[in-house]
C-alpha cells in the first residue's frame, strides 16, 4: 500500500468528518439544553443546501449573499419548529419529544419534496474546482473551505459558551435545569436558543458540503445519522470531543472503504456507534460525570 493512497484516504476522511462534526455539535447543543435528541437536525442540513440553491436561482443573488440568506431562513425554520412543535408540549417526556422531532423531520422533508421536487441539485463551488496536490494526494479548494469554516464555528462556539452570559446560562441549564431556573435563568428561552444555534449550524454544514456532494430533499437522513454517530463518539459534548468524534468517523469510513471493502462503509459507522453505546456510553473521551458543554 502506497503512502499517497493512505494520505488520500485520510484527507478525504477528514473533510467528510468535519461535516459530521458540525452536524454532531448541533445534536449535542440541543441535547444539553433540553435532554432530547433532535432527529430533525439532518433536515436543517438539507434546508441549508436547498435554500442556497433557491436564493441563487430564483432571486439571482451572488453566492456570498445567498449563503447568509439561506442560513437565516433555516434558522427561522428551527425557531418556528421549536415554538410550534417542542414548546406547546404539555408533558415533555423524552420519548414524546423524540417522537415529535422524528415527526417534524418527516414533515420538513415532505414539504421540501413539494417545494424543490425529487431531483438532485448542485450548487457551485466557492472557489473553483482546480485540485490542490498535497504529497501525492489531492483535495479541492472546497475541502479547505469545509475545514476552515468548521474550525471557525468551533472557536465561535467555544467563545459563546464560555465568555457570554447566555452561553454560560445555557451551560447552567445543561448541568441542572431546576437549579438554573431557580437562579433566574429562563430555561425555555435557552431551549429556543439551542434550536436556533443548532439549526444555523446544520444549515452551514449543508451549504458548505453541497458543492461536493450535491443536495436533494432527502440528504438529511444519512448525514443526520452520521452526525449523530459523531456526537455519540464525542459523548454528546458540544466541544472538541464531538469534533474529534466526527473526524475519527470520517477517516475510519474512508480507510475502511479503501482498504477493506467499500460495501462496509456505512456498516463501519454504525458498528462504532453500537460499540460506543455498549462499552463507553459516556463517549470515547468522557469521564462518567464529564461536563457536557
Amino acid at each position, binding site marked *: 500500500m502506497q503512502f499517497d493512497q493512505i494520505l488520500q484516504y485520510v484527507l478525504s*476522511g477528514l473533510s467528510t468528518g468535519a461535516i459530521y462534526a458540525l452536524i454532531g455539535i448541533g445534536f449535542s447543543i440541543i441535547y444539553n439544553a433540553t435532554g432530547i435528541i433532535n432527529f430533525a437536525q439532518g433536515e436543517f442540513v438539507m434546508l441549508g443546501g436547498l435554500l442556497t440553491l433557491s436564493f441563487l436561482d430564483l432571486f439571482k443573488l451572488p453566492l456570498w449573499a445567498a449563503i447568509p440568506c439561506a442560513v437565516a431562513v433555516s434558522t427561522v425554520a428551527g425557531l418556528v419548529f421549536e415554538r410550534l412543535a417542542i414548546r406547546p408540549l404539555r408533558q415533555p417526556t423524552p420519548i414524546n419529544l423524540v417522537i415529535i422531532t422524528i415527526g417534524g423531520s418527516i414533515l420538513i422533508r415532505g414539504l421540501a419534496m413539494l417545494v424543490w421536487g425529487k431531483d*438532485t441539485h448542485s450548487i457551485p463551488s466557492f472557489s473553483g*474546482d482546480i485540485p490542490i496536490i498535497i504529497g501525492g494526494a489531492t483535495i479541492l479548494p472546497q475541502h479547505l473551505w469545509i475545514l476552515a469554516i468548521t474550525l471557525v464555528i468551533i472557536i465561535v462556539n467555544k467563545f459563546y459558551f464560555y465568555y457570554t452570559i447566555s452561553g454560560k446560562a445555557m451551560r447552567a441549564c445543561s448541568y441542572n435545569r431546576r437549579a438554573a431556573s431557580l437562579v433566574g435563568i429562563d430555561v425555555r428561552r435557552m431551549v429556543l436558543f439551542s434550536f436556533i444555534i443548532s439549526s444555523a449550524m446544520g444549515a452551514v454544514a449543508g451549504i458548505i458540503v453541497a458543492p*461536493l*456532494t450535491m443536495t*436533494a430533499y432527502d*440528504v438529511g437522513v*444519512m448525514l443526520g445519522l452520521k452526525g449523530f454517530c459523531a456526537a455519540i463518539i464525542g459523548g454528546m459534548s458540544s466541544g472538541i470531543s464531538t469534533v474529534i468524534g466526527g473526524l475519527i468517523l470520517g477517516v475510519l469510513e474512508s480507510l475502511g472503504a479503501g482498504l477493506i471493502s*467499500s460495501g462496509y462503509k456505512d456498516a463501519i459507522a454504525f458498528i462504532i456507534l453500537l460499540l460506543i453505546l455498549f462499552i463507553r456510553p459516556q463517549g470515547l473521551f468522557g469521564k462518567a460525570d464529564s461536563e457536557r458543554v
Partner: protein
Amino acid sequence: MNIRCVSVLVMFVTVLFSSAVFAAAPIKIGALFAVTGPAAFLGEPERNSAKMVVDEINKAGGVQGRKLELISYDTTGDATKAVQLATKLIKDDKVVAIIGPSTTGETMAVIPVAEKEQVPLISCSAGSKISDPVKKWIFKTAQNDSLAVGRIYEYLQKNKQTNVSILTVSDGFGSSGREQLKAQAAKYGITIVSDDTYGPKDTDMTAQLTKIRGSHAQAIICWGTNPGPAVIAKNAKQLGIKIPLFMSHGVSSKKFIELAGDAAEGIKLPSGKVVVADLLPNSDQQKKALMAFVKDYQNHFKAEGDHFGGHAWDAVMLIKTAIEKGADTPVAIRDQLEKVKGFAGIGGSFTYSAQDHAGLGKDAFVLVEVKNKDWVIVK
C-alpha cells in the same frame, strides 16, 4: 308535415349518434407506475408519457373509431401495492392490457397475477429476468442491461482496453449491472481487475477511486443512477484520474451533465437514442418516432423527454398497433403483440416473437460522449 320531418330527422340523428357512442365504448388500458417514492424518477415521466400519448390518440379520433381510456395507479415503488393494484385493474376496471410496473422488483411480483388472469402486461423495467425465460403474457419495452454492457465492452475490446475496474451502486440497478458486467467479461476478453460498490446515498467516493487509481485498470465502468455517478465524476477529476470513465444508461439525461458540470466532459455511456434524437442520421428508422416524442414531451411538460418516458410511450403505441389490427380482448392483443415486427419506437426497433418478449437488439443503444455539456455519438 314539416314538424314531422324534423322530428324524424332528429330521431335518426339521435339513433345514429347513440349507436356511434355505443360502438365507441372506450378500450381500457391499465397502468402501474411508481409515480412517488424512490423510483419516482422512472414512474413520473412514464405516467406523463403514457397520458400524453393516449390523449393524443383520442384527439386524433381514437383507434378504429374507439377511444382509449388509461387507468393509471401509483404503486409508490412497493411490490405488494403493485400486486393489489394489478388485481384491481383486472377485476374491477376490466382492462385489456397493463403497462408497467416501473421497477424490476414490482414487475416480478405482478407477473404471477397477469399470468393467472391471462392479461397481457408490458413492463417498463429493465431486468432481463422479466422476459428470460419467456412468459406467455409478459412483454417488456425497457432495454435489457445486458445490451448496455455489451455496447461498452465492444468499444473497450476494439480499443484494446481490456483491464477494467467496476464501481457499482449497491441497489437493484447496480447489482443487476454488476452481474452482467461480470458475466459478459470473458466473452469480450475483458479482465475485471477491481470490483467495488458504493451506497446509493454516499457522498464521497474518493476512497474507492483511490483504490482504483492504484490498480492497473485501463478503464473504469460505473453503474448507477443520479446522483452517485455525478459525485464519482467529480471525485475522479479531483484525483486526476486519466483513464476513461464509462457510465451506465442509468444517467443518460441532461440532469447528469448538469450535476457533474465540467467533470462530465469526456465521459462515455451507452444510451437509448432519445437523448441524441436530433443527431441521428435521417436513415435511422427510429428518428421519426423519437423526434415526435421529444417535441411532444417538451410541449406538454416543459421538460426533456427521457428514455424512461419512452418505455411507456412504446408500450402504449404497441398496444395501439395491436388494436389497429382488430384486437380488443386480452387474448387477441397478446397474440398481436407477439406478431409485432420492426416497430420503430423510442427504446429501439421492436420485433417480438414466441421466443423473444424483449424484442430489442444491441442497436437499441448508441455509445454517447459528453462534449461541451452536450451529447455526441461515438463512432
